[in-house]
């Protein structure tokens, strides 16, 4: 990094010394800026937006990485390797040779065997009261605290309170104590099993210490989802809980390597990996930090940030190109005069280049500040969202993105890129000045050049053909086709090339659309090709498209002379039109994807209302605990006001000879009320209506209906529609002498298959409660009620009623609500960044109009002299701008929709996600963006219409 910054400084010094030697040029460039203040302001805003975009994307990325690094540091500290066996634990003796070698080579500085397990934890007494809402899933951890003080380079301090924990005492992490309101001395229940005894008589512990530390004193399991916190137990007490077969068996063995991945020292890691691979101990090995970093860098969030950064940089480049294209075109006459007056090509070029440097330098500080504000604002919304979600008390917890962070490096890189990018672009772009025909420039006549090929174009074309013909590889093929598409128009000049050009861009578009791939990277590439090809397709067919616009505006007053000019300017200025279209389509493209894809997820989530609980509004769950009398009776259910239909269900465990078959037994209400539809049924049911089939299924308790996944590619149990099989239904009976298991034989036939039912409701066959053995087994099963609400608005009153009766209720709306809140929250955040991106488009179109007005002053004068009125001039600009904006929006929507469909194909997988398109949202977005953009062109257009003809024809600034 320091090399990069040093290079920038050296380049800066060279550049400044270059400036000093060209005082005349500096003076001219500097004065040019203040000649047209409004335009200069727009140029600076344009440069500022480009830089703010880049800094903003880097800031978001930094904040996210900071969160990841902080959480790795907090949860893992010096833990670099985790050796584990989920089922049986790790025998530390088996690792001794490997550990010995690692220690003798001095590669590691700590080994610590530990126990941990996830258990629901709650305030003492909640469990007995079945107050499930306060339950939180926590990591319960323990290790030899005396040995732990030697773990890692920075030996951890372990307080005496923890070292001296008694068997009924615990230490809890501060995040858990804060979120649950516990302090030292409070008591908690740890529910160490799913059986009724564990629930009714949980182990009680007293909190002795609140831990606020990093690393092993905050460890929650290497891939723990336990964001809720950890509980530290006495070492012997924990041994009794985990009950491993031998003394030396542990849940995991943690290893601290010398050096630190986060600190940048990877030397030890490679050597340690070699030794681990040599011994390959037969256990699972997690390269804890490296794995966590890997999973983050290949995760969706990183993908989104990369996508945003690339988008930001491209949008910035296009905006800059557009700005400097207009600047050179505006200065053409002056440059011609300078050239005629003896300025060399280089000097003429440098006048524009230095001017651009000033714009860039002026905009740097504002760009940096604005970029930081932008990313800070966007990230604060992430923080609000995650902390809002954590309030919802989701059992497994939510990571809280707590702090905005931008590194000095990012600011420097962002500023450097923000300076270098425009400098490089303008430097090369100003070479177009070299091509200036001095006479034409002075006369202000457009140069006419016959299109001719250049060797470099041919090289690119040939390269494109070679890449296309290379063996099966999507990247090279598509890149090749893109090159062909770009360079054919500049190389092959034959009579009908214009016709051919109209269709060429469709080729990569079609290939991208039909090329099957599940990779997100290929998808990213496809996305840009689809967008790029759509833009090219539109530009090559601009005359046809503008013709369509002509038809659209043909009914306005004085349409003919207005359209004659309004339609021809975009068509004859393809490069400029192309840049505006690109700016808009780029932003809209990303906005559409960010609207459509989450919408599909949200809409499917909403539609899942009928499948999540089979069309019921919620369920009441009762774990075996009827002893307490807590399960509501039919009569008690009747007393709950505002409740609609309700019916009981039981989850039963049954077994064939070698397979577990989870059964769900449901009452008549389920068969009457559910909204599930049949995928297929046995022949006996052919010709019956769905409701009739449900009644048949209810009346025949040996007939079962199964979810589609159960008969389709079921890796555990190979069954199909029409199969009959015997199961033994299990029942655990708890008595004074302990627990014993009873079994009841039962015959099941798969009579129908349903699609869409959620796996949380049915993991296996659903059978009617007419089942004769139900009475024998229902006492020991998890059971409950499926219910509907009298009206959707009754949700809160019903929830309170259940709570009063100590019931654990889950409502479909809550589950959907959380999902929607997460999805929509993230979308809103990203979209706020993207809507900011629209400023790039708006600045682009504003600069275009402002510069067009000054560029076309004479034309406006002439138009006025031959009879164009004020409103006609205004309408000419209005329609011309509308064409570019609307085309940009339409292209963005088209390419965005196609890409969204490709994303949908990937995320759908083999699932039941439907492609649902948010027509209303997209139309509102498109109209809104059009109106805001056109508003920004109003003032310059009005100014154009107000120019006096005599003034315009003088055409001097």
């Amino acid at each position: 990094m320091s090399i990069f910054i040093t290079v920038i400084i050296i380049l800066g010094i060279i550049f400044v010394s270059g400036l000093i030697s060209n005082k005349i040029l500096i003076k001219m460039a500097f004065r040019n800026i203040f000649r047209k203040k409004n335009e200069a302001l727009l140029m600076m805003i344009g440069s500022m937006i480009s830089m703010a975009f880049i800094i903003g994307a880097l800031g978001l990325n930094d904040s996210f990485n900071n969160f990841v690094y902080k959480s790795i540091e907090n949860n893992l500290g010096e833990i670099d390797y985790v050796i584990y066996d989920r089922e049986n634990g790790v025998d530390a003796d088996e690792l001794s040779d490997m550990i010995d070698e690692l220690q003798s080579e001095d590669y590691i500085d700590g080994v610590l065997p530990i126990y941990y397990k996830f258990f629901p934890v709650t305030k003492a007494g909640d469990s007995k009261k079945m107050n499930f809402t306060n339950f939180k899933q926590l990591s319960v951890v323990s290790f030899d605290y005396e040995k732990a003080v030697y773990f890692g380079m920075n030996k951890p301090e372990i307080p005496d309170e923890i070292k001296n924990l008694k068997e009924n005492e615990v230490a809890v992490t501060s995040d858990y104590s804060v979120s649950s309101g516990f302090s030292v001395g409070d008591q908690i229940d740890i529910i160490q099993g799913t059986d009724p005894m564990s629930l009714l008589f949980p182990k009680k512990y007293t909190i002795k210490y609140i831990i606020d530390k990093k690393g092993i004193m905050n460890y929650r399991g290497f891939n723990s989802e336990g964001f809720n916190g950890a509980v530290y137990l006495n070492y012997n007490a924990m041994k009794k809980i985990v009950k491993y077969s031998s003394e030396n068996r542990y849940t995991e063995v943690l290893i601290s390597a010398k050096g630190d991945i986060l600190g940048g020292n990877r030397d030890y890691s490679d050597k340690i990996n070699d030794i681990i691979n040599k011994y390959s101990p037969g256990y699972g090995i997690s390269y804890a930090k490296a794995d966590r970093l890997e999973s983050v860098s290949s995760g969706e969030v990183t993908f989104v940030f990369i996508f945003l950064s690339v988008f930001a940089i491209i949008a910035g480049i296009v905006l800059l190109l557009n700005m400097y294209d207009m600047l050179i075109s505006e200065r053409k006459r002056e440059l011609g005069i300078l050239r005629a007056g003896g300025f060399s090509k280089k000097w003429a070029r440098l006048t524009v280049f230095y001017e651009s440097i000033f714009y860039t330098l002026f905009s740097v500080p504002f760009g940096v500040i604005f970029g930081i504000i932008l990313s800070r604002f966007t990230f604060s919304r992430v923080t609000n969202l995650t902390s809002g979600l954590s309030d919802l008390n989701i059992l497994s917890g939510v990571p809280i993105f707590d702090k905005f962070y931008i590194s000095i490096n990012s600011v420097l890189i962002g500023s450097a890129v923000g300076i270098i990018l425009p400098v490089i672009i303008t430097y090369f772009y100003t070479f177009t000045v070299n091509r200036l025909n001095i006479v034409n420039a002075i006369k202000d006549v457009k140069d006419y050049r016959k299109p001719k090929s250049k060797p470099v174009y041919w090289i690119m074309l040939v390269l494109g053909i070679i890449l296309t013909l290379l063996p099966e590889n999507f990247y090279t093929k598509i890149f090749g086709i893109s090159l062909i598409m770009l360079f054919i128009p500049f190389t092959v000049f034959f009579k009908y090339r214009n016709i051919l050009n109209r269709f060429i861009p469709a080729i990569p578009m079609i290939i991208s659309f039909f090329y099957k791939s599940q990779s997100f990277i290929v998808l990213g590439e496809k996305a840009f090709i689809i967008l790029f090809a759509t833009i090219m397709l539109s530009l090559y067919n601009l005359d046809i498209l503008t013709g369509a616009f002509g038809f659209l505006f043909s009914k306005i007053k004085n349409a003919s002379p207005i359209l004659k000019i309004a339609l021809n300017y975009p068509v004859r200025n393809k490069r400029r039109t192309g840049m505006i279209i690109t700016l808009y389509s780029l932003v809209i493209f990303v906005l559409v994807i960010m609207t459509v894809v989450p919408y599909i997820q949200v809409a499917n989530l909403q539609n899942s209302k009928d499948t999540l609980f089979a069309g019921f509004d919620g369920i009441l769950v009762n774990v075996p605990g009827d002893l307490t009398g807590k399960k509501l009776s039919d009569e008690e259910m009747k007393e709950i006001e505002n409740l609609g239909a309700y019916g009981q269900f039981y989850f039963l465990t049954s077994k064939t000879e070698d397979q577990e078959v989870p059964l769900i037994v449901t009452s008549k209400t389920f068969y009457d009320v559910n909204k599930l539809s049949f995928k297929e049924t046995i022949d006996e049911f052919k010709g019956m209506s769905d409701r009739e089939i449900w009644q048949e299924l209810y009346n025949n308790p040996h007939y079962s209906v199964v979810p589609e996944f159960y008969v389709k590619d079921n890796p555990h149990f190979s069954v199909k529609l029409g199969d009959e099989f015997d199961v033994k239904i299990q029942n655990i009976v708890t008595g004074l002498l302990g627990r014993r298991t009873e079994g009841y034989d039962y015959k099941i036939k798969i009579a129908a298959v349903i699609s869409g039912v959620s796996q949380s409701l049915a993991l296996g066959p659903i059978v009617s409660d007419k089942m004769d053995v139900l009475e024998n087994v229902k006492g020991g099963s998890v059971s409950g009620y499926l219910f509907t609400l009298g009206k959707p608005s009754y949700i809160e009153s019903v929830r309170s009623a259940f709570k009063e009766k100590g019931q654990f209720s889950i409502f479909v709306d809550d589950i959907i609500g959380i999902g929607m809140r997460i999805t929509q929250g993230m979308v809103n955040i990203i979209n706020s960044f993207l809507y900011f991106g629209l400023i790039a488009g708006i600045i682009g179109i504003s600069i275009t109009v402002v510069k067009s007005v000054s560029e076309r002053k004479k034309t406006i004068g002439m138009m006025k002299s031959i009879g164009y009125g004020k409103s006609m001039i205004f309408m000419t600009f209005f329609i011309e701008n509308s064409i570019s904006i609307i085309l940009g929006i339409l292209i963005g929507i088209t390419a965005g929709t196609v890409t969204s469909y490709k994303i949908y194909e990937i995320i759908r997988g083999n699932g039941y996600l439907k492609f649902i398109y948010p027509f209303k949202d997209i139309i509102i977005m498109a109209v809104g963006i059009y109106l805001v953009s056109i508003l920004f062109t109003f003032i310059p257009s009005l100014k154009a219409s107000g120019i006096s003809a005599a003034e315009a024809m003088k055409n001097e600034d």
Partner: protein
Amino acid sequence: MIITENLCKIYKTKEFEVSALKDVNINIEKGKIISILGPSGSGKSTLLNCLSGIDRPTAGKVIIDGTDIYSMKDDGITKFRAKNMGFIFQSYNLIPVLSVIENVELPLLVLGENESSARKKSLELIEKVGLSKRAKYFPNQLSGGEAQRVSIARALVASPKIVWADEPTGALDTKTGKEIMSLITDLNRENDQTFVIVTHDQRITAYSDEIFEMDSGEIIKMYKSEKM
């Protein structure tokens, strides 16, 4: 046909005031070619702008065919101009994104003529100015003389009563300048249109019926000329 009464134009800036026209009184008859002659800064272009209705005078009247044009609002003047006047500019002022034929037909479209009829009339005129082979060319594909012919065709296509020409040969070489002036003379003869030409080129006077010489915003001399 064109009468001015005490026409004055004063340009005011923060620092100074310039009288570009001082009590100009002229009378131009229908069907004549008039040259307004004078050195740079004499006010001839200002006079042309005021006469043609594109620059409102500070005081005085411009009466064309009995109509005091500045008694109308801007929109009225614009319509009047579209109907009665054509313009030829020194730098042609062709619209770069329109072809020759499209440039020429523009005034007809402004007047509300339908596209096919406008195209037909324009083609006739383009033929008249000798550019029928260039009808689909764009301005940057034309020479100066050709561009000025297009400009003339555009000025005449709507059959205006008056054609204003500001230095029509200023950007052309002598030979092409002569050709352009001959063309103007021919068209004037053919259509009985009034041409008012602003120039500092003495040679133009040879094509004129009447010459107004200007200096410091005043007509200092008016005389008739023997046409070539």
